[in-house]
């Protein structure tokens, strides 16, 4: 029994390290915070972290299959731009139309109000799934290296985002924005459940941030079942030894496509939330690049090997949390804003170099060249 635990611990060493590191820095953050621990601080932190956590999850799945996805930031941006059109929640509904040259096509009319918002969210997530699926098909059937294929599709996604929003703008329903970026209590009072959030049994949970709940739900309902499915296991197998996975009869093509499609879904969740949080769509190319790069950093800090085959999305969430908490420190310690990028870079370098300690334990130099 104890040896089983030891094995599991060793297998998830990266994840455990990330969790412990996060607990330490976050505890330190709250001790050092001038106002101390409060629901408001928690909500603010959760809002600022959710998008990166989703994009980090998105990056994890292709990385597990030994392929990097450089389009996650662009995909997130594109979905955000779609959301800024679809989630206005205008009561009279929203006519969907396309102008090609001077010809005007009316496609459909979105229902107004709450139903319209829900349909809009489903459409946004579907767009993300579709974009991820396209990524997967280009990689699998086009047989193009993932890193360069997603570099190209990322440019296309950004192009679509720029087409939709040449300048930042759009509008997200105010109630939606309020309900999703605050605590559960505010959510309940906005959507009128649990006696507008005043039910006695509900009070202990009222202070929990909604993004946190969403993150847990997405993890439990999407990631965990996926990981346990045949396709999910095949993703790990493809990442650790593609030839062996093929010889064992695993569906390697399906696994690859599923990995990129799931990445599209996660990135779409991130884009949707970012649009809701900022109440606008913004085709910001540098921001998309930053999210992509930070997603890779989160994946590495979360203990997933860039070579594929080991790690998981939960570690990446903690990786993203650590990155974000470090940037929170800059606020409370009054570090000059000019020095912040330097510290971020140094911490990233230090974090990845800690993994280099294994080099010292290697007895046979050949083991280095995996």
């Amino acid at each position, binding site marked *: 029994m104890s040896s089983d635990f030891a094995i599991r611990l060793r297998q998830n060493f990266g994840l455990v390290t990330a969790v412990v590191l996060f607990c330490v820095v976050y505890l330190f953050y709250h001790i050092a915070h001038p106002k101390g621990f409060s629901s408001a601080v928690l909500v603010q932190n959760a809002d600022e972290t959710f998008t990166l956590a989703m994009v980090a999850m998105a990056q994890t799945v292709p990385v597990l299959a030994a392929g990097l996805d450089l389009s996650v930031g662009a995909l997130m941006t594109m979905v955000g731009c779609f959301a800024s059109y679809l989630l206005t929640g205008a009561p009279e509904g929203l006519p969907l139309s396309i102008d090609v040259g001077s010809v005007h096509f009316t496609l459909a009319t979105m229902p107004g109000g709450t139903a319209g918002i829900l349909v809009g969210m489903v459409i946004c997530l579907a767009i993300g799934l579709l974009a991820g699926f396209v990524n997967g098909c280009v990689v699998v059937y086009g047989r*193009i290296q993932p890193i360069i294929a997603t570099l190209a599709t990322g440019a296309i996604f950004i192009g679509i985002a*720029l087409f939709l929003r040449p300048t930042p703008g759009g509008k997200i329903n105010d109630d939606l924005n309020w309900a999703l970026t605050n605590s559960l209590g505010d959510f309940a009072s906005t959507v009128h459940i649990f006696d507008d959030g005043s039910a006695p049994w509900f009070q202990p949970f009222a202070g929990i941030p909604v993004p946190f709940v969403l993150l847990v739900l997405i993890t439990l309902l999407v990631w965990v079942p996926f990981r346990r499915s045949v396709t999910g296991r095949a993703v790990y197998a493809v990442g650790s030894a593609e030839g062996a996975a093929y010889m064992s009869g695993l569906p390697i093509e399906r696994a690859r496509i599923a990995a990129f499609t799931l990445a599209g879904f996660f990135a779409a969740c991130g884009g949707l939330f970012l649009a809701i949080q900022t109440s606008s769509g913004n085709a910001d190319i540098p921001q998309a690049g930053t999210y992509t790069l930070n997603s890779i950093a989160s994946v590495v800090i979360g203990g997933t090997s860039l070579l594929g085959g080991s790690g998981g999305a939960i570690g990446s969430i903690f990786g993203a949390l650590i990155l974000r908490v470090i940037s929170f420190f800059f606020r409370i310690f009054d570090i000059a804003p000019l020095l912040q*990028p*330097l*510290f971020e*870079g140094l911490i990233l370098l230090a974090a990845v170099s800690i993994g280099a300690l294994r080099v010292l334990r290697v007895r046979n130099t050949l083991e280095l060249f995996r």
Partner: protein
Amino acid sequence: VTAIPASAALSRDDRPIAIAALFIVAILIAGTAYTWLRFGSAPLLSPTYLLQQLQIGAFLGIVAAGMMIVILMAQIDLSVPWTLAAAAMMATAVGGPWAIPIGLAIGLVVGFVNGIGVAYLRVPSMIFTLGVNAVMRGLMVAHTGGFAPQTAATDLMRWLAAQHTFGIPNALFVWLGVSVLVVVILQRTALGRYIYAIGNKEAAAYLAGVDTRRVTVICFALCGLTAALAGVLLAGYSQKAYQGMGDAYLLPSIAAVVIGGTNILGGRGRYLGTLVGVILIVLLNSVLSIMEMPEAGRQVIYGAVIILMLLVYGRGERVTS
């Protein structure tokens, strides 16, 4: 055992270059047809215009030369943007006769650090160079205060980047020099053979007696050097250094290398291909700007071209074969 005919072995590396070159011709024809019909002129065929475009392309070409060396080793250098910017900023800040040496030295040092991290600490280059890029950005933001530096490029930098000799931009000569150097390294020196060997299988190269880690450090230093050279020239071209001046060079340089037929997994590719890839991207950009294509359309076309070119010749082998 069937012997591979020499012509087939040759064409594996040459086919991408030939197709990319054909695509360049197609771009020129399409662009000229467009300008002829719309404006009644053919700027794309005028030598002055082409030389001007190539002069702008020289910066990308120099970055791509270094990037290619690193990609041939199955690594990647994501620290190019801020290595380039840091070299430009420090060169303009120092000024005087030491401007260019200091700028290049910065590139060498950054590349050296990259190499140490990748070769000796065994951190994946994707993530280590990313961190170094962030550090360089941090250093430069702290140094400049987040504004464009007020310092100006020296006369020599301007001469190298913006002046002409015999009607040909000097930047083209620099690009030519870098190209010759890279070709000589790749084709005529042991270092070049080592680079291809490491890209194919580092363990095998190590067992064959190559000090693969030292070679890796050298190559990253070379890549840093070319990025710094591009930065110094770019500062000379635009008279000054500015924030984010290198951001537009990272992805196009990788794309140029890959479009030119270099395998992103390393070990295969010719410098001529990278040259053709750079020219393709530069011409594509200039045709799109003549067409007044909005940024959205440019990005879509840019991505589509990369995928299209790779679908034609860049496809990997099936795992089943």
